[in-house]
């Protein structure tokens, strides 16, 4: 009896911790995760300690994501920042049967066709990584610093539309945050409303 109460208390505590952990706020430690990439490799976030890491939530059927891939904007950002040693993880949290859910080979075909260049594309059909970071939309963007702290969480830029014409004049929050921290400055805009399609989690 005592033991079962203790179990209950422990369970409650763990649940509390899980719910606290689930919101990775700016300034907090980025919760660690292990994910399977579309190329079959296993990715541990903790292995990238010492580097900047960008998380990009992705759904290939979402018109907001389409804006940044059809314009080549996302691929440009991926190439620019991975070229400077930043780790770029594209995360696919759509559940099976929902928009944006793909198999590993479908994702590899997409990456090749779009000439995308993330460090890895992580398949997250259970939504585990998405929920860990409380990702709401695609494309939601998170930037983690070399000490493993979240320094930016929100939209990709300041134009919350699906219009390709809005890409050139937009202020890109991810690039600006990376430029600022790399220049030793604080991130001026560290949290914004992430715009886009809702992440298609399973029930």
């Amino acid at each position: 009896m005592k033991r079962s109460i203790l179990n209950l208390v422990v369970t409650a505590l763990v649940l509390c911790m899980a719910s606290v952990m689930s919101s990775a706020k700016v300034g907090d430690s980025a919760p660690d995760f292990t994910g399977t990439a579309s190329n079959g490799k296993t990715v541990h976030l903790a292995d990238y300690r010492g580097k900047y890491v960008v998380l990009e939530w992705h759904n290939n059927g979402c018109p907001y994501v389409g804006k940044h891939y059809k314009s080549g904007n996302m691929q440009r950002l991926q190439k620019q920042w991975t070229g400077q040693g930043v780790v770029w993880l594209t995360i696919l949290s759509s559940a099976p049967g929902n928009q944006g859910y793909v198999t590993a080979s479908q994702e590899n075909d997409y990456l090749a066709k779009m000439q995308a260049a993330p460090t890895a594309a992580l398949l997250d059909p259970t939504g585990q990584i998405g929920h860990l970071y409380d990702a709401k939309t695609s494309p939601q963007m998170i930037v983690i610093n070399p000490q493993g702290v979240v320094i930016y969480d929100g939209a990709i830029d300041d134009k919350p539309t699906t219009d390709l014409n809005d890409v050139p004049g937009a202020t890109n929050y991810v690039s600006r945050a990376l430029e600022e921290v790399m220049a030793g400055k604080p991130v001026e805009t560290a949290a914004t409303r992430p715009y886009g399609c809702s992440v298609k989690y399973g029930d």
Partner: protein
Amino acid sequence: MRRWIRHSAFSWAVALGLALMLPASVARAKSTPITHGTLELIAEDQWIAPGHTLYLGLHFQLDKDWHIYWINPGDSGEPPRVEWQVPRGVTAGPIEWPTPHRLETPGIVDFGYENSVTLIVPMHPGAGLTAQQAVQFGASLKLLVCSREMCVPGKAQLSLTLRVKTQPPLPDPGAAELFAATRKSLPLPIPKSWKISVADANDSFVLTASPGHPIIDHPITDHSITQAVFFALAESQIANDAPQSVSPLASGFRLTLRKSDQLLKPIQRLRGVLVLSGDRAYVIDVPISKARSGSGTP
């Protein structure tokens, strides 16, 4: 033969087009197909007169379970954006947004309207509107229409021709029902006897409402408030998916609203819509005070 049919169809289209362009007493434009629905531009009155505000309605009829968004769309999506082309001497007012609904999917809370909604916009004709046979109103819309599963962006171009007369306008009987029903879905000004205050309590805003003396028109007594939902007008102020807990007080009730993680700078006022017991909705616009000790989150 085939050419004839095509030619004939073309002629009919031209004839129909011309017929629609005639400035008769058309107070309702033909409905335009949009992604997963139709959109109509409707005037409340039969004509427009200088000095009399005219109300136009953008009526969305969407496929079942598809939705558009409120001015604050919530966690995802975006509201429709309208650009008006108005006759000389007329000024377009802001959209009168009906009370939104919470559209919930796992982990996401959006605000909007499912199936159908009408957005009313006032048009203010000044002295610059002179008597002429007819004037045209145009609306260019950028839209996002979504289901729980997917979103489709779209565009629409609508126009409406109205006669100009000097005598006060008469309502169009064909539009009366729609406008009456839509006005019922608009949030009301808060009753004058109510006292509403909002306190900043670290990670929350605490809204305290005291209805004061019960009013016959608003029969809300201290004990009847069991449900209250607040919709913030601006994005990134309160956490959309956080439970909003209602605690009854002797003089009214208190609603605790968790701040959004995206709110990094203090705000001066809280603006939005407060919905009580599911159907009575009020416009809220109150200054935010620092919480006194003891009145913070429970």
